[in-house]
């Protein structure tokens, strides 16, 4: 019995509420070992049959890719982290409706892309500056090359953020997440032909945006 209930009853009050203690049933180490060894589809089946821990294993398995996807859309760690959590909560609610037509990872990408596109539609992403020392292999690059490459990467990322949503999603999934056209079609719910066209148009638009950015930059310098 909780302390508040004890206090209430000791002074003769009848509490109008109660504390319900529920014991969470966790999987045994053996069960967890079985889940860890299972493939994604088996984990989905285990989840559907009521084994909640199967979802934890799915999270552990796909969290990095989902986070990276979210980061590429949202451009900063905080938003990407929040969105990753949101994507997994959506996946938890919708996993029963997963038909198994595609891989679980592809399905999670679909959930993630939709969530991210909805998010960037209402809030412009805040692109986080990437510190050069985080990424550049200092052994092979001169300081000048490092800075120049890093600046160019920022310009490219900003330009990608300005692309229309479907083109942006296609480019991110193709070039960053390294998905095939067929997988992207599955994620975006469109045809392979549409994906190829979107990829082509995305690069075309990106070229124009980068040219405009270069022109603006050279104007500033002059």
């Amino acid at each position, binding site marked *: 019995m909780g302390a508040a209930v004890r206090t209430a009853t000791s002074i003769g009050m009848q509490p109008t509420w109660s504390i319900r203690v529920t014991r969470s049933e966790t999987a045994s180490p053996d069960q967890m070992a079985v889940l860890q060894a299972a493939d994604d589809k088996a984990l989905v089946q285990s989840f559907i049959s009521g084994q909640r821990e199967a979802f934890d294993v799915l*999270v552990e398995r796909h*969290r990095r890719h989902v986070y990276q996807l979210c980061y590429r859309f949202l451009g900063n760690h905080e938003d990407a982290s929040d969105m990753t959590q949101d994507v997994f909560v959506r996946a938890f609610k919708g996993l*029963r409706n997963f038909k198994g037509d595609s891989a679980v990872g592809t399905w999670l990408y679909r959930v993630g892309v939709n969530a991210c596109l909805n998010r960037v539609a209402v809030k412009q992403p805040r692109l986080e500056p990437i510190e050069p020392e985080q990424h550049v292999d200092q052994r092979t690059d001169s300081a000048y090359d490092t800075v120049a490459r890093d600046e160019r990467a920022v310009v490219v990322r900003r330009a*990608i953020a300005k692309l229309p949503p479907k083109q942006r999603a296609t480019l991110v999934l193709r070039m960053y997440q390294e998905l095939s056209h067929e997988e992207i079609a599955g994620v975006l719910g469109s045809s392979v032909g549409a994906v190829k066209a979107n990829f*082509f148009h995305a690069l075309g638009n990106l070229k124009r945006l980068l040219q405009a950015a270069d022109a603006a930059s050279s104007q500033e310098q002059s």
Partner: protein
Amino acid sequence: MTTKLTPQELAELEQAGLLETLEDVRAAAANDVPEPSPLYWDHLSARVKAAVDAEPMPSASSGWRAWWRPIVICSTAMATIAIAVALRVMPVAPAADTTASNEAAAAAELADASAAEETSAMWDAIGAVAPKMPVSAAMEAGLAPGRYATDAAIEDLTEAQRRELVRLLRLELSNNP
């Protein structure tokens, strides 16, 4: 970056002058996501677990509930519309009018309608009551026809019905000079 583009894709991109842009994207894609601290992933899992634990376990029936609800709503809406349309197209009961000529017109219409819808108990009841109802009583009961109702009723008559209406009106006028 190991994104594999087919030779055909590369040829198309080269033809469109997009290879340089592709290289820009490739260069920007290298290490574009900062690697969080190694502790972050467990922290993320714990956050997700806490958020998910706050959610009820999705029930097995949630799937079919999701699709039968719209069907029920649509069916109800369609039934409502069908009833509304049926009521709208149902012949309006001829109401007692303020003039004797309108009474005659109503009587003529009533005669046709009764013939066409012999099974309509409503028409039978109105046919029995309307001729005996004083105009003032009908007005008080709110049975006066709306604007243009008589014109609309005449428009709907067939040629034979109109001839009969004219005959009844003339008869009525001759009886009440």
